[in-house]
Structures are given as structure tokens and as C-alpha cells.
């Protein structure tokens, strides 16, 4: 019985791999051109939703669904992330045991800089996200790092995002082949199907934004991280970018990677870069 199964398996995958290789879509590895990618990416959504103002894309599902926009406007009068914002402000000014504060770790004291994150660290040769920089600041000052998916990290990033509200996303790709590779790696992750559901981020956020998966309306991929961190009614709590990536993975039945894994840092780098110019709108309230 065992032999029969592996024979069946072998022949099946051989046939399919042959088909995949012969398919017309196999192209030579083309040159990585982030500027062109960003332009194409933005134009795709501007044409798909001609009536949506460009800066509105940062409001996720609310930019493409009127009934939900009304519910959102009502919530924004007194948003549920108010507590996280106050907690973040308080934490930001509370000195560490060694007397230093987060302001000492960040340019401009950490105020109004969220739009520059994530950035490519040429010394480390990797993408550094705001959440990673916050934990590195804590560790450099002898404090224990926070969980990437829990409230403390969300409160800190909520306050830093709030101080950048309205500023256009401003992600830079230095002239460094490793930076281009990180951008390409992020793009590849964004478009690759995974999990038993066989979905990629693009299956939902490029092919069917504005449509519903049960109660949830899918947000367009353009500007999808501009509102991070978000208070989600679904979680009845705050969610960092890391928590969003981890939960999205498990919804497609893919085992999530560890928060701040290279793939997550690169896909955040890709998604933020293609949203350059669109305003920061965090912290956000979402379904």
C-alpha cells in the first residue's frame, strides 16, 4: 500500500513540475526596478478605484465601502485606540532604569519619524522596522524586549505613528544590491501563494479589495500599512504589523514565521515603499 502511494505521488508531482516549467510565464530574472514597481502598483489601484481620492487609500476597507465608512467615522469620534495612545505617550516619556528614554534612541527624539520606517541598515545589510528598533533600544538600555504582538509594542508604535499623522510615507532604497534584494524578496513574498488555502497576500488585497470574505471587507494593498498599529474590533485590542502578518498567515492555514522574520521585514519594506507619498494615518481603527 505504501509503495502505491509514493508512486502515485511521484508521478503526479513530476507531471506538474514539468507543466510549471514549460509554462509561457517563465521569464529571465528581470532587473529589479523599485521606482517602476511603485508607479505600476499605485496606478493599478488608482485605475481600479477611480473615485477614491489617492490619500484615502490609507483608510483600508473604509476607502472602498460606504456603509463601513459611516461606521468608521462614528468610531473615530472617540476611537477605541485612545487608551493605547495615552499609554504609549506615557511609556515614551518614562525613563528606563538607566535614566535614558526612547527619545535618546531615535532621530528627532522619536517624534514625527514613523514615515521613515522601515529603513535599510547598510551596516547590518537588512531591513530594520520601527518595532525592531524599539526593542533594540530597550535592550541597549538594559530593559527586556516587548513581545512584537502584544499591547506594549502596539502602544509605543501607536504614539510614534500619531506624531507622524499626515506626513507622506518616505521609504528610501539605498544604492546597495542587498537593499534591492530585500525589496525583491518582499515583493516575492507578497505575491507567493501559501497555506492549504493556496492564497498569497495579492489573492485578497490585489485581486479582490472591496469584496467581502464573510463579514470582512478586504482592504486594497496600496497604503495597507500606513495606519499601523490598528485597534481591531475582531481582536478587541491593538495589533502591530507583526500581529497582522502572523494572523493573515494562519488564516490561509500557513504556519506563521516568527515575528520580525526576514521575510516579514522585507514584505513590510516592499509594501511601505510602494505606498511612498501616501499619508501616515496611524493608529487606525479597523473591523
Amino acid at each position: 500500500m505504501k509503495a502505491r502511494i509514493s508512486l502515485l505521488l511521484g508521478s503526479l508531482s513530476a507531471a506538474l513540475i514539468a507543466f510549471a516549467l514549460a509554462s509561457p510565464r517563465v521569464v529571465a530574472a528581470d532587473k529589479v526596478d523599485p521606482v517602476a514597481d511603485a508607479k505600476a502598483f499605485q496606478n493599478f489601484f488608482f485605475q481600479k478605484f477611480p473615485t477614491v481620492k489617492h490619500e484615502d487609500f490609507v483608510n483600508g476597507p473604509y476607502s472602498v465601502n460606504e456603509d463601513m465608512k459611516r461606521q468608521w467615522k462614528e468610531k473615530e469620534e472617540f476611537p477605541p485606540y485612545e487608551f493605547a495612545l495615552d499609554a504609549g505617550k506615557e511609556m515614551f516619556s518614562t525613563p528606563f532604569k538607566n535614566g535614558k528614554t526612547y527619545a535618546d534612541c531615535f532621530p528627532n527624539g522619536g517624534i514625527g519619524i514613523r514615515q521613515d520606517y522601515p529603513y535599510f541598515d547598510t551596516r547590518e545589510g537588512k531591513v530594520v522596522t520601527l518595532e525592531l528598533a524599539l526593542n533594540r533600544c530597550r535592550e541597549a538600555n538594559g530593559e527586556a524586549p516587548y513581545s512584537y504582538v502584544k499591547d506594549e509594542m502596539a502602544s509605543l508604535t501607536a504614539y510614534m505613528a500619531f506624531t507622524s499623522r499626515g506626513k507622506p510615507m518616505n521609504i528610501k532604497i539605498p544604492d546597495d544590491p542587498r537593499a534591492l534584494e530585500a525589496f525583491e524578496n518582499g515583493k516575492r513574498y507578497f505575491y507567493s501563494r501559501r497555506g492549504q488555502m493556496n492564497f498569497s497576500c495579492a489573492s485578497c488585497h490585489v485581486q479582490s479589495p472591496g469584496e467581502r470574505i464573510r463579514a470582512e471587507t478586504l482592504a486594497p494593498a496600496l497604503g495597507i500599512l500606513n495606519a499601523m498599529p490598528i485597534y481591531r474590533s475582531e481582536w478587541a485590542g491593538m495589533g502591530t504589523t507583526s500581529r497582522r502578518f502572523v494572523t493573515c498567515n494562519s488564516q490561509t492555514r500557513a504556519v506563521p514565521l516568527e515575528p520580525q522574520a526576514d521575510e516579514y521585514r522585507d514584505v513590510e519594506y516592499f509594501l511601505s515603499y510602494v505606498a511612498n507619498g501616501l499619508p501616515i494615518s496611524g493608529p487606525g481603527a479597523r473591523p
Partner: protein
Amino acid sequence: MSTTMSAAMKRTLAISMLLVASFALSPARAATEADYKAAYATADAAAKEAAGLRNQWTVTVTALAAAKKAADGGDFDRATAAANEAEALARASIFQAYSEKEAWKAMEIR
């Protein structure tokens, strides 16, 4: 441009689903502990390969756990079936990882 490709993708998904379903039905004489151990070993190896490709499926992990749980309970029929299912799922996720190395370009906004 992308429509032909996604039809092909749908076919590969359908085939892998059919493959998984066929395992549940295959009639077998009562599986012994040895059968279970062999099935579990190959399933575990396939799952490790999938994890190495950073493309593990949650259902593979649950199927492996179900196999171990059934085996602990002495039900080697169910344990072996679950282990075989885990192997099939792991193989499907491995196949997905390899095919996506190129297939993702079809969906890319250009």
C-alpha cells in the same frame, strides 16, 4: 495575461485536493504499530522539509499531532491514516513552495 495562469493554478490545487481526499478512503488491513511508525517517520521527514522551505501548512502539523495522539491511544489504523494524510499535506506544501518560486510573477502588477 494572468487569467491563463490562474486557471492552471486552479487545476493544480484541485488535483492536490483530490489527492488528499483519496487517502482518507484507501481501504487497508488493520495497521500495526510498525506500519504506523514507518508512516509517521516519512510524514515527519516531509514536514521537516516543508518547514525548511519555510512553507509549512498548519493542517500538516495538526494531522501529525492527531497521528501521534491516535497512536498513543493504541488506534494504529487511525494513526497510520493520519500520518499518511500528514505526509500528503507536507508534500503538497513542498510542491507549492517550488512551483511558487516562478508562479508568483504571473500575479505581479507590472
